[in-house]
């Protein structure tokens, strides 16, 4: 056995050990994003939502105002050749969901927000889950989280008017020509008078995996079986859509068709700002039936994170960077509101 070191050699080796440990700790700090160039993080997205709309403890940090529903999905069997996911051949699948309006303010008037969403969790008898968050626009204005963050900033309400600065928005869209399809949609969009007569779109593409392991890229939409009727020009009720939904469900279930649109070779499967040509083939995967609604901000949907990357086997994410960013940001929102629920007892 060697003898212990003393004096200068000992000091040198101790210094080398200290240096090595410091290097490892620095690497850790860099990996965590505590040092180095500022990055776009899930935290920064959620911070920005809270800065813009206000801090509402316990609520979701976007699409904050909503209500829980439940029902079932009746698979048509027609998508079973495209995906091995049980949801496409089980005849009746339990569903819980959440209707919401866009924005981080849980007290916004329902009629004031053009974006509406429907999030679903489908639980099949093989023990798997499919969660999906769908929105009214079929495409986004941009295709990367960085550009989306710039869009969020460009939409910051002007303190003087409480509305986004039109010049700033125009400058943003001018700098992002990829937003053409979204702008066209926004121009043509006519809001309906009900969650029931609204279409909801996956926006991002996903890969359906068939029995031979082949991937079929799709986007999906829920098409309402309730006829369209336009939102009145003037709506006084802040909770117009929630009251309407309750009223309709008290009379009977509501139905949507789950339509899958198949991409052709060359279609943008990883860019949610690019629409696919209208003549792409579609498949009617089944019918969503919603028949129960819970009290506002109560029910099974409230404490769930509708992370769009919670997918059953047979459905895989595309390489769309926005899809990954949604998953990361939803998780940050969920963690934050869970802490608020634990520390402040804050629940919507």
């Amino acid at each position: 056995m060697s003898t212990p070191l003393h004096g200068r050699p000992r000091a040198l080796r101790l210094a080398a050990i200290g240096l090595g440990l410091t290097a490892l700790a620095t690497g850790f700090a860099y990996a965590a994003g505590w040092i180095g160039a500022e990055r776009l993080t899930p935290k920064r997205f959620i911070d920005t939502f809270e800065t813009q709309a206000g801090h509402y403890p316990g609520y979701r940090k976007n699409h904050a105002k909503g209500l829980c529903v439940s029902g079932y999905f009746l698979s048509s069997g027609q998508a079973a050749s495209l995906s091995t996911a049980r949801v496409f051949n089980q005849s009746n699948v339990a569903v819980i969901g959440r209707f919401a309006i866009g924005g981080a303010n849980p007290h916004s008037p329902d009629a004031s927000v053009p974006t509406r969403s429907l999030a679903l969790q489908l639980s099949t008898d093989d023990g798997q889950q499919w969660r999906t968050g769908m929105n009214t626009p079929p495409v986004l204005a941009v295709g990367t989280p960085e550009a989306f963050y710039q869009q969020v900033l460009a939409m910051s309400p002007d303190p003087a008017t409480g509305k986004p600065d039109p010049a700033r928005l125009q400058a943003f869209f001018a700098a992002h020509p990829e937003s053409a399809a979204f702008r066209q949609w926004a121009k043509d969009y006519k809001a309906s008078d009900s969650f029931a007569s609204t279409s909801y779109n996956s926006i991002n593409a996903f890969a359906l995996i068939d029995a031979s392991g082949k991937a079929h890229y799709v986007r999906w939409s829920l098409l309402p079986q309730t006829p369209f009727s336009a939102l009145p020009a003037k709506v006084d009720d802040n909770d117009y859509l929630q009251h309407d939904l309750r009223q309709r469900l008290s009379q009977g279930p509501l139905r949507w068709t789950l339509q899958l649109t198949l991409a052709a070779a060359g279609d943008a499967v990883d860019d949610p700002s690019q629409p696919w040509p209208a003549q792409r083939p579609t498949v009617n995967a089944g019918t969503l039936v919603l028949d129960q609604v819970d009290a506002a901000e109560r029910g099974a949907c409230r404490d769930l994170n509708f992370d769009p990357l919670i997918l059953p086997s047979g459905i895989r994410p595309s390489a769309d960077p926005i899809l990954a960013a949604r998953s990361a940001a939803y998780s940050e929102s969920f963690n934050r509101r869970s802490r608020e629920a634990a520390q402040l007892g804050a629940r919507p």
Partner: protein
Amino acid sequence: MKPVAFHPLARLLHWLMAVLILAMLFVGVSMVSDLSPRHTWLVSLHKAIGLALLLLVLVRIGVRLSLAPPPLPDDMPPVQRWAAKASHLLLYGLMLAMPVLGWGMQSAGGYPLPLQLPALLPHDLPLYALLRQAHGWLAYVLFATVLLHLGAALVHGLVRRDGVLRSMWPGPLPKN
């Protein structure tokens, strides 16, 4: 005669877990601050390594209890002996706690579990918050303890030169 080195199985488990734990700590802190498609991949990796580490730590606890470790050098001061015992106990505790907390918090958060494992706890948002925060803070404690452990091992091996580092050497034991 007392052993001069850890049993080869103990050494194999130590180094395998050392690599996985260090990877896990870096993956964990990276993924929570990342929103690129790498995030998705890192989360899957984190769950897979976490499950592997849970199985490994159970085997390791069994090995530790059944195979006697070599004694510490006779000339080590009592404070250092105490620190060595306490830090190892802490390391074992954290190695077991981290994957169990991960499993428990995913259960309490209402998330589906990998390999369709059963939920350890009921779906409960405040409970999720508590476990999620404990998982995060204990990860920092684990990293700090790993640094301390590594620093102490290097001092034993390079400064005190007392055979402690050699007793956990990953290859065939070097001669004196």
